[in-house]
């Protein structure tokens, strides 16, 4: 028989252990409770597939925002995924130990720079460059994609770096013993073995890009239109929520929470995919 104190401690710890799960459920329940009934009343189809967002007249269609989020995210992946994976491969397979020891912490620091700072750099540096050299207003899909692409680099680099690092050494040695060059062993063997971890890093990066808010508000221009070119101004789901949350009441506020529901589901799908990819990797090794 355990002493009473020990049992109290154990039950307390057990309670605490469910705090993260409980928080997650609480978040889901309250976001859905505010947003889902509105979506159903308006009609899910009208809400998701209309581009007419005029809260004053009772029009709530988020299609343009969904398209904007997809464009900006895919653009960010075009910038961030190749750069990030290349960085991870270089650091793990080609850089000397001394170089790696300097560069890795620096890249971790990149992750700590607040998103508002990136947004500001986008406004002060990236947008003017685009305006002068490519035309348009500058604040655009392209500017947002460039800034977000940089912001997801640490995620992509650190997770794909872990994946590459966990490929057993014998794989590389086997390839080298067959007469392969270093690069051949990397792209034929190591990258193949690490591909699900690398995929997970890219998907998690996408999740970050979809969810990023403050930087996007500052650089994307926030026009609620379906973009026709990368130089068009757009308003993403996250930007719309953050921009109007402060002043929204009644139906308008519910519409923003419904937008949050869409975002929440999108992020959960991406996270689920990333977790599945990670699991595949740990099952193999």
């Amino acid at each position: 028989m355990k002493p009473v104190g020990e049992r109290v401690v154990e039950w307390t710890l057990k309670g605490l252990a469910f705090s993260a799960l409980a928080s997650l459920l609480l978040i889901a329940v309250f976001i859905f409770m505010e947003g889902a009934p509105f979506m159903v009343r308006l009609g899910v189809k009208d809400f998701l597939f209309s581009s007419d967002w005029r809260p004053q007249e009772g029009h709530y269609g988020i299609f343009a925002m969904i398209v904007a989020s997809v464009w900006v995210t895919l653009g960010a992946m075009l910038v961030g995924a190749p750069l990030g994976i290349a960085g991870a491969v270089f650091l793990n397979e080609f850089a000397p130990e001394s170089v790696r020891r300097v560069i890795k912490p620096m890249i971790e620091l990149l992750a700590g720079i607040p998103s508002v700072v990136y947004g500001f750099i986008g406004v002060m540096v990236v947008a003017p460059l685009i305006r002068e050299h490519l035309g348009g207003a500058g604040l655009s899909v392209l500017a947002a994609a460039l800034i977000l692409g940089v912001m997801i680099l640490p995620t992509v680099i650190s997770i794909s770096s872990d994946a590459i690092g966990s490929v057993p050494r014998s794989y590389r040695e086997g390839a080298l013993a067959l007469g392969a060059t270093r690069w051949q062993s990397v792209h034929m063997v190591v990258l193949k073995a690490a591909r699900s971890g690398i995929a997970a890093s890219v998907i998690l990066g996408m999740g970050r890009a979809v969810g990023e808010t403050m930087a996007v508000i500052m650089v994307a221009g926030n026009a609620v239109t379906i973009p026709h070119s990368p130089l068009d101004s757009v308003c993403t789901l996250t930007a719309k929520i953050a921009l109007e949350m402060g002043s929204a009441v009644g139906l308008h506020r519910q519409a923003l929470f419904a937008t949050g529901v869409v975002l929440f589901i999108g992020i959960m799908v991406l996270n689920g995919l990333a977790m599945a990819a990670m699991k595949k990797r740990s099952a193999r090794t």
Partner: protein
Amino acid sequence: MRIPPKASQAIAVALLGGATLLTLAVLVFVIVFVLGKGLPVINWAFLLDVPREMGKAGGIFPTIVGTLVLPLVAIAIALPMGVGTAVYLTEYTRPGRVTSVIRFGTDCLAGIPSIIFGLFGYIFFVTILRMGWCILSGALTLAIMVLPTIIRTAEEAIKAVPNSYREVSYSLGATRWETVLKAVLPNALPGIVTGVMLSVGRCIGETAAVIFTAGTALRLPDSLFDSARTMAVHFYILAREGISNENAYGTAAVLVISVLIVNSVSYWMMHKFISGRSA
């Protein structure tokens, strides 16, 4: 045409190295740009004066206080929950259905973007619990946001404590909780502190989750039930509403320096901790 293997290797290494250099160049540019524009603005008056004309003139003192208090309260809330979870997962259960459910919840929570935390904090703490925009609402929201980080780092740290420590403690007749409290946690402390520092860094830079929960009051807060503005929020408002680019740069520089210091310390601790273990 086939490129000879040696040449293709040279090309690949050049491209990969170039990509890495580009990443580094961006990082250096961001920091140099912000510090270059912001450092000239910073002086004692800027740090210790109250803002005037919505931040157009004067200093940023109340936002520094906000930036110190909010993460502190958030950590005070998240630390017991996070370390408790980690202790339960590592010391009180075996891996099984319960642990995998908890871990799934933690992983999901880690992936939620900060604007969702902001929405949740606004509807739950600010509106339903009628706490209003205040430091406590903001800190509770941030606490949930950093919980996964604290759980994961504490778990790693506790797992790294050698089993022999526990065995010695049990052999001396200690109970499980006494063992956790006196043998396991003190040795896991550096790892736990690393997680705390990482979380503080994230709280300092956070905007979306804070602006809808702690509010944007520029006054010096009197209590946890007062609204407060952090440096990140202040910077966002200055920059976005075009109040003062000069003060925005100054605030950004203080913000970036604080985050860099906090993150460097946590990175350094993490590595010291890891190398200390393997030695």
